[in-house]
């Protein structure tokens, strides 16, 4: 279960809130962009927050439009791509591997 449930969410975001979200979403944003988006969000969040008016505790959420269950595939190997195909879109490659800039953080 999630912590910090706020039933009346903030319907506005500050520049710093947007900066934090942009960080989570891995999008670099200029200060101007952050401010503009924060302003736009005030209007948008106001509009979308309406969903809470009718979303009572007695209503079950729907995450999928059809009531399907237990859709599986058999444990059978099918041919993979060739490594050439797999790497065909790679911005950089080396030793049949995707070459990426240095990774920071956890090992």
């Amino acid at each position, binding site marked *: 279960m999630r912590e910090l449930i706020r039933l009346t969410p903030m319907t506005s975001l500050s520049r710093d809130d947007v900066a934090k979200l942009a960080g989570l979403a891995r999008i670099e944003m200029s200060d101007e962009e952050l401010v503009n988006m924060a302003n736009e969000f005030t209007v948008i969040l106001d509009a979308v927050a309406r969903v809470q008016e009718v979303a009572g505790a007695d209503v079950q959420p729907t995450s999928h439009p059809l009531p399907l269950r237990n859709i599986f595939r058999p*444990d059978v190997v*099918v041919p993979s791509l060739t490594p050439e195909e797999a790497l065909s879109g790679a911005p950089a490659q080396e030793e049949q591997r995707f070459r990426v800039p240095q990774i920071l953080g956890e090992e």
Partner: protein
Amino acid sequence: MTLSYDDVVAKYEPVLGLEVHVELNTNSKMFCGCSTIFGAEPNTQTCPVCLALPGALPVVNEKAIESTIKIGLALNCSIAPFSRFARKNYFYPDMPKNFQISQYDEPICVDGYVDVEIETDEGPKTFRVEVERVHMEEDTGKSLHVGGATGRIHGAEYSLLDYNRAGIPLVEIVTKIVPGTGKYAPEVAKAYVAELRDILRSLGVSDVKMEQGSLRCDANVSLRLIGAEKLGTRSETKNVNSLRSVERAIRGEMIRHAELLNAGGRVVQETRHFQEDTGLTRSGRSKEQAEDYRYFPEPDLVPVAPDAAWIETLRAALPERSSIRRKRLQEAWAVPDKEMAAMINADVLDIVEATVLLGADPTKSRTWWLGEISRIANDKDVALADLSITPADVAEIVALVNAGELTDKLARQVVEGVIAGEGKPSEVVAKRGIKVVNDDGALMAAIEKVCAEQAETAEKVRNGHLPAAGALIGAVMKETKGQADAARVRELLLGHLGQATN
């Protein structure tokens, strides 16, 4: 100042939490048909799905679900009638979609336990480790860090990614906190992982090779003053990839925490990495800022709702629980505790049982596998199972010895021959011309020859100094190239020298 372990446990109570990730041994990956064979050339086992190419969609491997339910049942869990996959969102280059398909608040199995027995000062004692959940997820790719020291991430100039492992089914087994182990915390943790490994192996759902990473343990440890209610801050140690390391890592963390606390410092909640060479842990990423994983139900997959009939079919096919099996075998074979422990440690239970089932005497089976054959495997530095000697071979050799066609010493030559690839035991016997000399006349000739050569020793024996007979028997055995039955030689020799044999 380095604290001793005794100082630590005199003052603090450790609280454990263990997360074990198990790679399932399905033929294909969790969400696509790529092969899961270990050690393939890089990026040869990848497809649009496991590379997260735009447009590709996952479809769940049925066998992986079955294996997970089996694991849950074997760990005494309840199987959820309805469970769902969720997306765990965070960016990392070895995770192609930048989210992991995992399970969040609706795992497949919940609320189980594993009982482990360890040796304590007061004798054997059982600890119950409660399992909170068993859930499904997928593995990540592997990165190779180039340019830094020893392939480590720090100081690397760039990394090379191989996605063969990406999408291999993983089962995560999470315990509840384990309090009350006191000074035995490291042993309990080790025994738990060992027991888990045995259970998983008996289920046949994983290769459980810690050294290949198909079973990985994260150990959470915290300390609180003895008698205190509130839990201390925990550290989470990763990279613990052997049973011995589980024990060392926890012991090491307990000492590290206690030193910090004694010095008035505080433990930081963080991920630490176990280092095999030093037995110490190294700080990883600090978790001061908890990740916001933004879990939500995976819209590309539909819920898993196993019906009771399916679960019961799987339950009925479960193998005997390993602790029960061990008790049963120990009784049936009349094995002393110490020997039983040795067998479990050396992991020969299956192979000995197979040998016994082929008609061999339990004690002799055990002696061969645990003794001579293990020694050879050690010398060659290979696993027992990789030697070309089978339970059937050992059973045959035991039978030959029982029939008097081989002496123990000759049998060892046969074992060597089989392992050297010379064929079945009977073939080795034939090829090497190994046979017991049963001809008393031939033996007597050898005895007379030896007694003549070592007349002085023979005289001693004749005068009643029996220990001296050993040298003569040895010489006779040498004379007959080891093919004589030593007991018979002794009998004949003593008779020849006028000594009664009983």
